């Protein structure tokens, strides 16, 4: 399925500010095309594959906000100059279980990838996350960056995260980082000393933490969903 013909094969679930896409086959992003996808992981099992051609750019915003979700996103940077950027947010509450995978394969020279994932775990939520940047021998001058940050806000929550690099070419730049932490007591103290109670202070910090990953560009519906989920912080 080629992006320029996408409108003909999309299932319209809701027609608001953006379009819901139900993917049954790979999306091929044609040369010099820039697209932005917003994906909602609500199904127990979702897999998506995107192939990016010459000088095309894909930006993906991914939201995993409730229930049980398993989502796998694979992007192949197939031709020179292809770029992929993933900004992913997960918010687990209650007994949510998320299995998330991001895979980016660099298969051509001068390709760029960037994966930024942030998550907040409340209650008894569990998340398994694996991010993979794979750079083939055919991809000199590739650049790959990956960062995952998880805030664990409950004693019963559990995070299993693995950012993986597989590099088969020496003429590349590639790095990754991963952090797991909790609410900084100094930040909480700062907000509470300005009159917020602890609950509101945590909500404020959590919201700022998550929205930083998606650069405040997500739809209003997402902000509303995050606000609802944060009431249990």
């Amino acid at each position, binding site marked *: 399925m080629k992006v320029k013909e996408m409108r003909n094969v999309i299932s319209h679930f809701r027609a608001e500010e953006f379009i819901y896409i139900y993917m049954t086959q790979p999306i091929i992003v044609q040369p010099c095309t820039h697209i932005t996808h917003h994906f909602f992981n609500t199904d127990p099992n979702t897999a998506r594959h995107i192939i990016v051609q010459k000088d095309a750019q894909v930006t993906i915003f991914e939201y995993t906000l409730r229930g049980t979700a398993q989502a796998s996103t694979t992007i192949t940077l197939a031709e020179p100059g292809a770029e992929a950027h993933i900004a992913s947010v997960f918010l687990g509450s209650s007994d949510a279980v998320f299995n998330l995978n991001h895979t980016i394969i660099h298969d051509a020279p001068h390709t760029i990838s960037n994966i930024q994932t942030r998550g907040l775990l409340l209650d008894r939520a569990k998340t398994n996350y694996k991010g993979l940047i794979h750079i083939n*021998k055919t991809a*000199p001058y590739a650049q790959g960056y990956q960062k995952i940050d*998880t805030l*664990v*806000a*409950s*004693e019963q*929550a*559990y*995070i*299993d*995260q*693995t*950012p*993986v*690099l*597989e*590099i*088969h*070419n*020496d*003429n*590349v*730049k*590639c*790095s*990754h*980082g*991963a*952090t*797991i*932490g*909790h609410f900084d007591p100094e930040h909480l103290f700062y907000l509470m000393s300005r009159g917020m109670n602890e609950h509101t202070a945590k909500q404020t910090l959590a919201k700022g933490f998550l929205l930083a990953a998606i650069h405040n560009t997500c739809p209003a519906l997402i902000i509303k969903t995050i606000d609802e989920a944060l009431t249990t912080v």
Partner: protein
Amino acid sequence: MPKKTQITIDRSTFDSANKDQSKYKAKPGLSKEVVLEISRQKNEPEWMLERRLKALELYHNTPLPSWGPSLKDLNLDNIIYFVRPNTEEAKSWDDVPTDIRTTFEKLGIPEAEQKSLSGVGAQYDSDVIYHKLKKEWAAKGVIFENMDVAVQKYPDTVKKYFMTSCVPINDHKFVMLHAAVWSGGTFIYVPPGVKVDIPLQAYFRMNAELGGQFEHTLIIADRNSEVHYIEGCSAPRFDAKSLHAGCVELFVHEGSRMRYSSIENWSKNIYNLNTKRALVDKNGIVEWVNGNMGSGTTMLYPCSILRGENARSESLGIAFAGPGQHQDTGSKVIHAAPDTSSVIRSKSISAGGGVSSYRGLVRATPQAKHSKSSVTCDALLLDDASTSNTYPYMKIANSDMDVAHEARVGKIGDEEIFYLMSRGLSQEEATKLVVSGFIAPVIKQLPLEYAVELNRLIELEMEGAVG
């Protein structure tokens, strides 16, 4: 055609074998008869034989691991699991047979012992052939013994600690194998409050073709003691594939500190499938310093279990994967108590088509409140025929822990090489200088004074100043 870099480590000292004059050599392959014969020749107590046989049964019922480097060329039925050199354990180098003594002299062991060690053990194939502890440390109650002898001399202590709580015999397939056929190795006990301020060293040398080595190292640092142990190893180069499946168990009791330095330099026909683990009690500190330069395939992940409050683990490692080598190494830490901390720093170099993988784990239980962990991995690829992989696993089950991991992979910049060459260095000299700078933070911690293998790394450093 991928371009390969010529940086390698000179192995001429290690690669030649002595003539095989072993007094006993088991038939190839692993069977109950081999295990019974090992135990009979060592005159072991019944409990040790039972443990061996139980491990053998587990080994036969366990498949090979399905992850990591390929083990398809390792023919476990071809390995000789017990080879005894034609000599007994000596307390003086003069009593060691000439050919064996010459081997260890070339490796620098007697010289190092004289200058800068408090005790030395030397193992040749399956037996310890030299062992000596300086009198001043023996007088303070330090025990530094051949593991086979320790089973006889200190049965209660060995029975309590040997493959019970640290590395149990059912841990994984190659631990099961080790538990069935282990031979030789080191037993160290440091009494409460004793600080052994000069290192103890053991050196393990394989000689027989197809002979495997399965030494067991058990070190117990009692309360508030300190000890530094250095391990070196090598083997001659043969065509047939052989195996090293040793085991190291460290018990770092309350308030004690232990540094374990290891320079592994097996020949490229060796599969190095070693297991190392430390149990660290309250206020204890364990430091791992690892240099992996040899073997064809390595799977080695030293593990610290921080089970006491305020326990600490530091791990510093370097791996060099040259042509035909696959180094799959890393570090594991399990935080199982509050206020524990761990630091892992790993550097790897891949050249000439080598594959270097960092595989590590940071795990935290709900009890590990106020704990911290930091992991840093840097990988240098010296040519486009080589590969670098990073697999850092983080499994955290509490809300009051800080974990950070970062990794960078890249090559030596063209600008850096140009800068150095414009100052008169050749390209090879420039590359070696940059590489030595890359590994310098680890090299500074390694026991350069008395491990000849490390001197090879100095060849990577330029002599004289750069103007």
